């Protein structure tokens, strides 16, 4: 549904994106994560035809996005800052979108206005950041998009509105099979809604995988022994990290959980259990495994 092939982008002489390749399947929610300055917003601006790639191309629904009105008529975009016409009233910008997008759905719009209460007579310049984001989400979902691209849509929103916005996005995917690409610094939030994750760092995609695979590849084992942690476990090549509190040890394992479990069992542990890891923990440990220090990848 969304395919980026060999994309390079320079800004002010610096290479911001370097040979980016991503693939987002129809109906999936793809989370784009990475530290500040990694190139997330630049990549998203290339996806929605704000920026033109210096090399490579962006294919959406089988067609190049460049100046493509057919694709853009079903492409929804919510940016981190809402650059809506400040002198327009809410109802005027709604009218503008209604006339611009051929698949505008009035029923959907009316439904959403009941959820997101916005004063139609208020000028956009007088709306708060949260209100502007709500308006942008309302407009974007009313155009009946089959591709939604969201650049940190929940940053600066209060928890209630954040939950509302995320629910709307999830509903959109389940009802209309919309393909979503969303970037956020809040990995907990992404973990709840995404099925695929792409990690970008210094303009390069470091990995792309389903959350399911990521979670099964990196696991945490909680173990306790009568005595010290045996040396051959400490030296096991499949172990990414060991954290110890008293006699309880938490061991992060990459890829080969069974081998490590067998190794531990040989030493008769008094406690042995596997714990699910959060996306944030996986992200940090995975990056550690890729040779990036925690400081480099701090979100």
């Amino acid at each position, binding site marked *: 549904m969304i395919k980026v092939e060999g994309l390079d982008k320079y800004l*002010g002489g610096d290479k911001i994106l370097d040979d980016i390749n991503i693939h987002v399947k129809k109906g999936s929610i793809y989370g784009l994560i990475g530290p500040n300055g990694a190139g997330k917003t630049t990549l998203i601006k290339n996806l929605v035809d*704000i920026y033109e790639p210096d090399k490579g191309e962006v294919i959406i629904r089988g067609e190049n996005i460049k100046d493509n*009105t057919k694709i*853009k008529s079903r492409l929804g975009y919510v940016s981190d800052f809402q*650059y809506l016409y400040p002198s327009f009233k809410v109802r005027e910008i709604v009218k503008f979108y209604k006339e611009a997008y051929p698949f505008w759905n009035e029923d959907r719009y009316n439904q959403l206005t009941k959820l997101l209460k916005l004063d139609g007579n208020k000028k956009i310049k007088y709306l708060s950041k949260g209100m502007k984001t709500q308006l942008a989400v309302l407009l974007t979902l009313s155009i009946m998009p089959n591709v939604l691209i969201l650049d940190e849509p929940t940053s600066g929103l209060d928890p209630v509105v954040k939950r509302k916005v995320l629910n709307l996005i999830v509903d959109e995917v389940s009802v209309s099979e919309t393909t979503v690409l969303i970037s956020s610094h809040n990995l907990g939030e992404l973990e709840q809604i995404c099925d695929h994750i792409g990690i970008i760092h210094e303009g390069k995609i470091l990995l792309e995988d389903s959350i399911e695979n990521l979670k099964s590849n990196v696991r945490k084992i909680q173990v306790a022994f009568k005595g010290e942690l045996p040396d051959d476990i400490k030296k096991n090549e499949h172990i990414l990290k060991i954290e110890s509190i008293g006699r309880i040890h938490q061991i992060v394992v990459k890829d080969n959980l069974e081998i490590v479990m067998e190794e531990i069992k040989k030493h008769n542990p008094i406690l042995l259990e596997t714990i699910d890891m959060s996306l944030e923990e996986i992200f940090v440990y995975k990056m550690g495994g890729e040779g990036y220090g925690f400081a480099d990848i701090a979100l």
Partner: protein
Amino acid sequence: MGLQTLPFNKTLFKKDWKMTKWLCFVAAGILFFTMTLGVINTYNNYQRTLKEVEEHPERFSDFDAEVHKDYIKESLMRMFKRLTGMEPVVIIFMPMAAAALLFGEEKRKKTLEVLSTMPFTRREIFFNKVIVACVNVFLPFLINAVIMLAALGLSKGLRNFYSAGMVMSWLGADVFRLFVVLSFSLLFASITGTSISHLVLTIIFFIFPIGFAGLLDMNMSLWGYHTSVIDTFLNTFGTYTMPGLLDGIENIPIVFHLISAIVMIIAAKLLFDRNKLERSGETLEFESIETFFKVGVTVCTSLLIGVIFTWLIGGIIFFSGDVPRIVTIVGYIIGILIGWFIASYSIKLNRVKA
């Protein structure tokens, strides 16, 4: 083979018109109060004068009604043929302001980014902005022409003073001038990234031929060279420059200006297609012209500061214009430093962060 239709888009037109219509009404108002109102009141004023003469003949001993009428007619004719009152101001600044609002402001406020994600082509966006700019600049003149024509239709007395033909010639001449200035402004709208840099550069280049010639002339005088070459050049080619448009219509090379206006619009469209949105908000849209801009500003500032510095030092220390040449050279150096700093700073200040 499919026919290529004009990329008119009602939605874009309405949006752009909403953003700029106030400009049109302000210009229409200025023209009405500084020109049209006077024109349509001509007959009433004439009648009032006649009445006054009748009531107080002692005050108007030499008054001849026919001579007075001819004088009014001649004044009106001059008004229709030459630019008067606020008319030149509207003709110069209205197209610049319209282009700055439609292009520069959309770039500065990043709303052009939103537009580029919507189902509009770049061609549609450019074309509709040009149409709205044309409506904005032509409509105030058209409204005033219609008022003058309507007054003519309603008042028989007015027909003794001006004709529909005179109004139409006035309208045609001003629409031509507006079209040329608008094309010039659109060209600069396509190479600048903000409304402020657009306005500043358009104004500088508007007066550039005369301003630069004047600067050269003053500097040559400082060095003891008095030449009529610059005067001769301006007298010969002055009407081919943008300020030359403010001359009487009969002196303006219309075909030359029309062709150059069309070339400027085509160039503006080609440059707009090459605009990169990541440079929106920067002083200049193209990195390749930054050096040209810096050198241009530096040279002009150096020449200007050289003259001002020489005059100041001459007045304060030497009490005459006859000062050592080192003073002028120091002025040039100060000008180079100031000019380069201003140009570099304006580029750096607006540089968009990655």
